[in-house]
C-alpha cells in the first residue's frame, strides 16, 4: 500500500494542474527576481509603479480581447477605436474640461457602436471575426483620417491628463482604473450567468444554443465589451500623450492579443482568464522596462516580444495536448 503510493508520487506530481493564468504570474515573479539580481534599483517602488502605469492601457485592452477570445473570436479593430477616440477627444475638448462629460460619453459610444457592428456582422452573417474586425479597423481608420483631415488638432483636458499621468496617493490613476476594470471583468466572468454562458458558447456553440442560450446575444456583448474597454484605454492613453495623434493605436490590437495569449487564453475559444490577461500585460511591460533598464534597444525588445509570444503559444498548445 505504502510502496504503491510512493511509486505513484511522481505521476501524481505530474497531475497537479497549474492553471495557465497562474503560470504567467509565476513568470512575473521570476522576472522580478532576475531584475533584482541585476540591479537593486529596479525594485524601487516608484519605478515599479511606473511600469504598472505603462501596463495599464494594454491591460484594459486585453480584458475586452480576452472576452472576445473566449467566444473563439478575435478583435483587430480595438487599436483603431483607441486612435479614433483619441482624435475625437482632442478635437472636441480643445484643452478644457467644460465638455468633458459629453465627450467621454461620445468616446464610449464610439467603442460601443464599433463592438455592436462587429458582433452583429459576425453573428448574423457567420463570417470570420478576423475579416470583419479587419474591415472595421479599416473603416475606423478612414473615419479618423477624414474627421481630422489627416492633421489632428486640439488638446486633451486637465482632468483626462490626470487620469493618464496623475497619482492618487502613491498609485498612478491609470493603475486604479486598470485594477477596477479587471475586478469588474473577473466578477462578470466568474460570478454571473453571462460569464457562464460566455464560456459555454466558446466551448461548444451548438450545444449551448440547443440548451437555450441566446448565443448571438452573448457573442455581440463580448464584442461590445471589447469596444468599450478599447474606448476607455483610448481615453487613458489620450491623457498620457496629451494631444491627438493618428498613430496612438498602432500595434495595440496585436499587443492585446499577445497579452491575453501570454496570460493563458486559448485562441480556440472556451477558455481564458482576465487575471491571466492582467499578468500578461504586466509581464510584457516589465520585460520591456527591464530590457530598457539593461540598455537593450527597442528593436531587440520587439524581437523578444515575438519570441515570447511564440514560446507562450507553444507551451500552451503542448500542455493542452498532454492534458488530453
Amino acid at each position, binding site marked *: 500500500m505504502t510502496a504503491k503510493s510512493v511509486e505513484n508520487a511522481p505521476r501524481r506530481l505530474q497531475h497537479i494542474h497549474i492553471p495557465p493564468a497562474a503560470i504567467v504570474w509565476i513568470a512575473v515573479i521570476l522576472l522580478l527576481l532576475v531584475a533584482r539580481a541585476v540591479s537593486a534599483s529596479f525594485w524601487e517602488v516608484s519605478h515599479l509603479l511606473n511600469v504598472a502605469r505603462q501596463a495599464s492601457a494594454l491591460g484594459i485592452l486585453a480584458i475586452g480581447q480576452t472576452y472576445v477570445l473566449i467566444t473563439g473570436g478575435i478583435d483587430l479593430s480595438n487599436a483603431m477605436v483607441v486612435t479614433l477616440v483619441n482624435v475625437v477627444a482632442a478635437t472636441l475638448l480643445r484643452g478644457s474640461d467644460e465638455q468633458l462629460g459629453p465627450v467621454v460619453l461620445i468616446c464610449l459610444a464610439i467603442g460601443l457602436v464599433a463592438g455592436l457592428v462587429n458582433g452583429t456582422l459576425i453573428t448574423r452573417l457567420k463570417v470570420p471575426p478576423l475579416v470583419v474586425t479587419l*474591415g472595421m479597423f479599416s473603416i475606423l481608420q478612414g473615419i479618423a483620417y477624414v474627421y481630422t483631415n489627416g492633421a489632428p488638432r486640439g488638446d486633451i483636458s486637465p482632468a483626462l491628463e490626470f487620469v493618464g499621468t496623475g497619482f492618487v496617493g502613491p498609485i498612478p490613476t491609470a493603475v486604479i482604473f486598470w485594477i477596477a476594470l479587471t475586478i469588474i471583468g473577473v466578477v462578470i466572468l466568474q460570478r454571473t450567468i453571462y460569464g457562464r454562458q460566455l464560456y459555454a458558447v466558446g466551448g461548444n456553440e451548438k450545444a449551448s444554443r440547443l440548451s437555450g442560450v441566446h448565443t448571438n446575444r452573448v457573442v455581440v456583448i463580448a464584442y461590445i465589451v471589447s469596444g468599450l474597454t478599447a474606448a476607455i484605454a483610448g481615453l487613458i492613453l489620450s491623457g498620457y500623450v496629451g494631444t491627438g495623434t493618428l498613430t496612438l493605436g498602432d500595434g495595440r490590437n496585436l499587443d492585446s492579443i499577445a497579452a491575453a495569449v501570454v496570460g493563458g487564453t486559448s485562441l480556440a475559444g472556451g477558455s481564458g482568464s482576465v487575471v491571466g490577461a492582467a499578468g500578461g500585460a504586466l509581464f510584457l511591460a516589465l520585460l520591456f522596462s527591464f530590457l530598457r533598464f539593461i540598455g537593450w534597444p527597442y528593436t531587440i525588445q520587439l*524581437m523578444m516580444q*515575438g519570441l515570447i*509570444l*511564440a514560446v507562450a*503559444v*507553444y507551451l500552451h498548445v503542448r500542455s493542452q495536448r498532454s492534458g488530453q
Partner: protein
Amino acid sequence: MATLAQSQSPVRRVTRVLGRIGPAYYALFFLVMIAAASQDRFLTGPTLTNLVRNSAVLGIVTIGQIATMLVAGIDLSIGPVISLTTVIAAVSMESNPEAAPGIVALCLLVGLLIGAINGFGVGVLRLNPLIFTLATGTAIQGLTLHLLYSPGGLVTRDFRELSRGALGPFDCSFCPGGVVGPIPYAAIYLLVLYLVGTWVLKRTSFGLAVYAVGGNEQSARLSGLRTERVKLSVYVISSVFAVLGGLFLASRIGSGDPLVGDPYTLDSITAGVLGGTSLFGGVGDLWGGLAAVFTLGVLSTMLNFNNVSPFYQFIIKGVILIGALAVGYLRTRGRNQ
C-alpha cells in the same frame, strides 16, 4: 441528360454561369466601366501603366497569402518580410553596388529561411498560424528596425529599371494608333507569376495536395498525404513571394524603408478574401485575387482623379471587405436552400 440541358432556358443558363463568377470580377468590371465613363484619361497608356506598377507589389504577395489561406492558414509576417527585404537590398546595394545579383539571391535565401520557420511552427508543431506568424512578424519587424531605423540606403540604377522599365512599343497594324505598348515589366511579372502559380495549384500533385489539406486535413493525412510537408512548403512559398514583392518595392522606391511593408499584410488578406478565397481553406484561386488587387488599384486611381481625399479609401476598403463577405454568405445561403 440531354432533355435536362434542353429544358433549361438560355436565360437560366446565362444566370447560372454569371452566378459562378466571383464578386471581385464584377467589382472590377463595374469600377473600370465607371472610371472609363467618367474620366477620359483612365483608359490611356500612362494611367494603365501606373495602375499596373502600383498594384504589382500587392499582386505578387497576394499569391503567397492565398496559398496559406488555401491550407486554412494565414501569414501575418508578409508586411515585415517586405520591409526587411527593402532594407537588406537597399543597404547592401549602397555599399556593394556591383554585388546586386548576389544581394537578390541573399534576400531570397532569407525568405526561404523565414518561410521554413513559419512552416515549421504552423505545419510541424501545429501552432495557431495567426499567433505564430504574428510572433515571427513582430520579431522580423524588430530585426528590420535594428538593421535600419529610418528610411535609407540606395539601390543600383540597373535594379531600379526592374520596376520602371517597359517592353516596346511594338508595331501593330490592327491596333488603334498602329502600335501596342510600351508594356511595363510589372505586367509581365504579374502575368508570369499568376500563370505559373495557377499551373502549380491546378495541374501538379502539390497543388492538389494544397486543396486537399485545406479541404479536410484529417482525411488528407489518412489518405497518405504528408500534410506537414505541404503546409511547410506553403509558408515557404508565402515568404518567398513576400521577398519578391519586397524586391519590386525596393526597386520602385529606390531605397529601404523599415515600415514600408506594413499595409501589405492586411491588404493581401483583403485581396484574397475579396477574390473568393475562403479563410477556412480548400476554396479559392489566384485569378480572383488578382481581380481583387486591381479592384483596389482602380478604386484608388479613381479617387485620385476625382480629387477625393485618399483618406476615404480606408473606409471604402473596409466596406468592400465586409461587403464581399456578405455577398459570399448570401450566395452560399441561396445555394443551400
